[in-house]
C-alpha cells in the first residue's frame, strides 16, 4: 500500500462520498460557544434540526466575565444575552453545554480535551480558528466559519478538499526556560504568518516527542498563526497516558479496542509531504513580539527592526527603530487563553512569582474551572495571589476583550495570548506576546526582561 500521512488515514476513515474536487467528511466532535449564534440563527431560519446532539458540545468562554469578586464586572446586557443565548440553543436542540457556573466550563480548547472529548483520529471542528489546538492529541482539528458551523449542525458533515501537507521537524533540545510558546513564535519568525497557508502541519522530531501534552497543545494552537488551518502530532504513549481515565475517554474494554486504531495513525515512513521544514530546537530563545502581527517577533535580546516596512507597526506600538525590547516598561500583564492557560503555564508563572511581588497589575485567568481548582489544590494559586496577581475565573478575557476586560488605549500589556493585532485587547491597546514565565518576569520587574536571568523556584506539578 502507498505510505500515507496521519491526515490521509484520518481522512479516509471519515470520507462519506466525493463530488469531484472535494470530499464529504463525517465530523466526530462539533464544539460550539456563544459566538456560534449566527449559525443557530441560520438553521432556525431554514427550519433545520440539529442532526447529532450527541456529537455537539457547547461551552461559554468568549463572553464570560471572569472577576468573581465583582461578578458581572464589565458585563453589560449584550454580554449576558450572548451567554444566555447559548444555554437556550443547547436546551432547545438538546445538546450538552457548560455554562459559567458549571465545573466543566473553561475555554473550549482547554476544557474539551481535558474532559477527554477530543480523542486521537477524530475530526474535530469548532467555529473558532484555534481549534487547531486539539491536533496535539492526534485529532484532525480545524476552525470553521459560521456557514460551515450551520452546515455541521444540520448535517454533521463538512465538504473539504485535501490539504497540502507540511512536515515540520524540530530536533535538538529546547534550552532552560524555553517553552512551546517560544518554539511556536520562533517558527512564525522563520516562516511568517502566511508561511503555511493551505497546509496542515504535522510536527515531528525529538524536540516534539519531548514536549508534554500541554506544551503540544500550545504549539498546535499557534499553528493557525503560521497560516495553517490545522496542526497535528501523532499520538504516542504520552498522549495515551494523558487521556486514560478522563471523563469522556473510553473505558475498558472499549479503551483497548480504541488503542489499536490510534496506534496505527502515525504517518507511514515514506509518506508524501508537500513541504518539509527542519528546525533546530536548541537555537530557540525567549521570544517577544514587538509589532502588530505574530510575525513581528524576535528574541528578547534583539532590537526593534529599523526597516521602513516596520514603520507603521512601530508607530502603533510606540517604539523607536533599533530600540532594545528588553527594559521596555509595561503597564499591565495577562496570563491565560487557550494558548497558555493550562496548569503547567500557571506553574511556570508561579515559579517566577514565588517570593516576589508584581509591579504592574497582573491578571491571571485559568483556562478552565478545572485548572483553577487544581491551582488551588496544589498551592499554585496562593503563590500567584501572594505575589499580588489577580487570580480570576476562567474565560477568554483579555485575549480578545469581548467580556468587558480591556487594555486601555495606549497601554502596553505583556500577554501570554496568541494575537497581537491592533486593538485586539481593546481599542488602541499594545500587546507583546510571550511565554507565561516571561509575562510573570515582566510583571515582577515592570519591564520586559529575559527570564533566563532571574532565579526561579521549583513548582511541582503532578501531571
Amino acid at each position: 500500500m502507498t505510505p500515507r500521512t496521519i491526515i490521509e488515514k484520518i481522512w479516509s476513515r471519515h470520507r462519506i462520498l466525493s463530488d469531484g474536487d472535494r470530499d464529504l467528511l463525517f465530523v466526530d466532535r462539533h464544539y460550539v460557544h456563544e459566538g456560534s449564534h449566527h449559525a443557530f440563527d441560520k438553521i432556525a431560519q431554514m427550519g433545520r434540526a440539529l442532526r447529532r446532539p450527541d456529537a455537539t458540545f457547547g461551552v461559554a468562554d468568549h463572553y464570560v466575565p471572569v472577576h468573581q469578586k465583582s461578578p458581572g464586572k464589565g458585563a453589560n446586557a449584550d454580554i449576558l444575552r450572548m451567554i444566555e443565548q447559548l444555554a437556550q440553543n443547547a436546551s432547545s436542540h438538546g445538546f450538552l453545554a457548560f455554562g459559567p457556573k458549571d465545573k466543566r466550563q473553561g475555554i473550549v480548547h482547554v476544557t474539551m480535551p481535558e474532559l477527554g472529548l477530543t480523542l486521537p483520529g477524530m475530526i474535530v471542528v469548532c467555529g473558532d480558528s484555534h481549534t487547531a489546538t486539539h491536533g496535539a492529541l492526534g485529532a484532525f482539528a480545524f476552525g470553521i466559519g459560521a456557514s460551515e458551523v450551520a452546515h455541521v449542525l444540520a448535517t454533521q458533515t463538512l465538504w473539504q478538499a485535501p490539504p497540502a501537507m507540511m512536515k515540520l521537524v524540530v530536533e535538538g533540545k529546547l534550552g532552560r526556560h524555553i517553552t512551546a510558546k517560544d518554539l511556536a513564535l520562533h517558527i512564525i519568525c522563520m516562516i511568517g504568518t502566511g508561511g503555511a497557508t493551505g497546509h496542515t502541519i504535522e510536527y515531528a522530531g525529538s524536540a516534539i516527542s519531548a514536549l508534554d501534552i500541554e506544551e503540544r497543545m500550545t504549539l498546535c494552537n499557534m499553528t493557525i498563526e503560521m497560516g495553517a488551518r490545522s496542526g497535528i502530532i501523532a499520538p504516542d504513549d504520552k498522549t495515551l497516558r494523558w487521556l486514560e481515565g478522563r471523563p469522556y475517554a473510553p473505558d475498558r474494554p472499549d479503551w483497548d479496542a480504541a488503542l489499536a486504531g490510534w496506534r496505527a495513525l502515525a504517518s507511514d515512513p515514506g509518506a508524501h509531504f508537500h513541504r518539509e521544514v527542519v528546525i533546530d530546537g536548541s537555537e530557540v530563545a525567549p521570544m517577544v513580539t514587538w509589532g502588530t502581527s505574530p510575525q513581528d517577533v524576535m528574541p528578547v535580546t534583539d532590537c526593534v527592526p529599523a526597516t521602513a516596512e516596520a514603520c507603521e507597526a512601530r508607530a502603533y506600538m510606540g517604539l523607536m527603530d533599533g530600540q532594545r525590547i528588553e527594559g521596555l516598561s509595561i503597564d499591565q500583564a495577562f496570563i491565560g487563553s487557550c494558548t497558555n492557560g493550562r496548569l503547567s503555564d500557571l506553574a511556570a508563572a508561579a515559579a517566577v512569582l514565588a517570593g516576589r511581588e508584581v509591579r504592574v497589575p497582573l491578571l491571571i485567568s485559568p483556562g478552565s474551572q478545572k485548572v483553577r481548582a487544581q491551582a488551588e489544590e496544589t498551592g499554585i494559586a496562593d503563590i500567584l495571589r501572594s505575589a499580588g496577581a489577580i487570580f480570576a475565573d476562567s474565560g477568554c478575557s483579555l485575549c480578545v476583550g469581548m467580556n468587558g476586560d480591556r487594555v486601555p488605549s495606549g497601554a502596553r500589556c505583556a500577554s501570554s495570548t496568541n494575537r497581537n493585532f491592533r486593538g485586539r485587547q481593546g481599542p488602541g491597546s499594545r500587546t507583546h506576546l510571550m511565554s507565561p514565565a516571561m509575562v510573570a518576569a515582566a510583571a515582577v520587574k515592570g519591564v520586559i526582561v529575559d527570564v533566563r536571568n532571574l532565579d526561579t523556584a521549583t513548582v511541582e506539578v503532578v501531571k
Partner: protein
Amino acid sequence: MTPFTTVEGQAIRLIENNIDTDQLIPARFMSRPRKNGYGDLLFYDLRRDAGGTFRPDFPINQHSGKEPFLIVGENFGCGSSREAAVYVLQDAGFRAIIATSFADIFRNNALKNGLLPVELSKTDYEALCAAHDAYPERSMQIKLHEQCVTLGTDSWAFTIAETSRQMLLTGMDEISYTLTHIDKITDFEIRYGAATPWGHGSGLGASDSVG
C-alpha cells in the same frame, strides 16, 4: 445567496498586506445579529482617528457603497475564523475581493456567502494594480463564467474550485445540496458508529454529572 455571474463596477484599493479579521471587524461588535446589518462596522477602528472622526486618507472612507470590488494585498483575512469579516464586506456592498492570496478560513467563509475571492498571480496582480492606479475611476468587470477580471482592453484569468463556482453561479444553498445525499450520510453513520461505539451517543464514557 445572491448568484454571482458577471459584476461590473469600480474598485477601491487598499495597499496593505496581511489585513486581519480584527481590522475587518473588531471582536467587540460581533454580538450583533446579522439582520441588523454589518456594513457600518467595516474597518471600524482603522477608519476613525482617536476622536472617532473618519480619517479622510483611509481609502474605504471614499467608498460610496456602490463600488463592488476591493483590491487588497497578500494573505487577506488572516486571524480569527469570524464570518462577520465577510458580513462587513458584503453589507458594505462589496461582491468580490482581489488579492494575491487569502487566508484559508476567510476564503471558505467568503465562498459560502457569495463574496468572490479572486486570487491573481503576482504578475497579473501588479498589472491590474498598475492599470487601476492609472485610471482609478474606470469600471471593471468580473465574469465568473469565464473566470476573468477585465479592465479596459486587459483581462486576467483566475481559477476557483469547480463546485464552489457552480454554487456561486446558481446561488445554491450548500446545506440543501448536502442533504440530497442524506442516505449515504446515514449509512456511513451506522457503519462508523458500530466501529467506534465509544465515540458517540450513548457510548460516550460519562454522563451529564461529571464532577
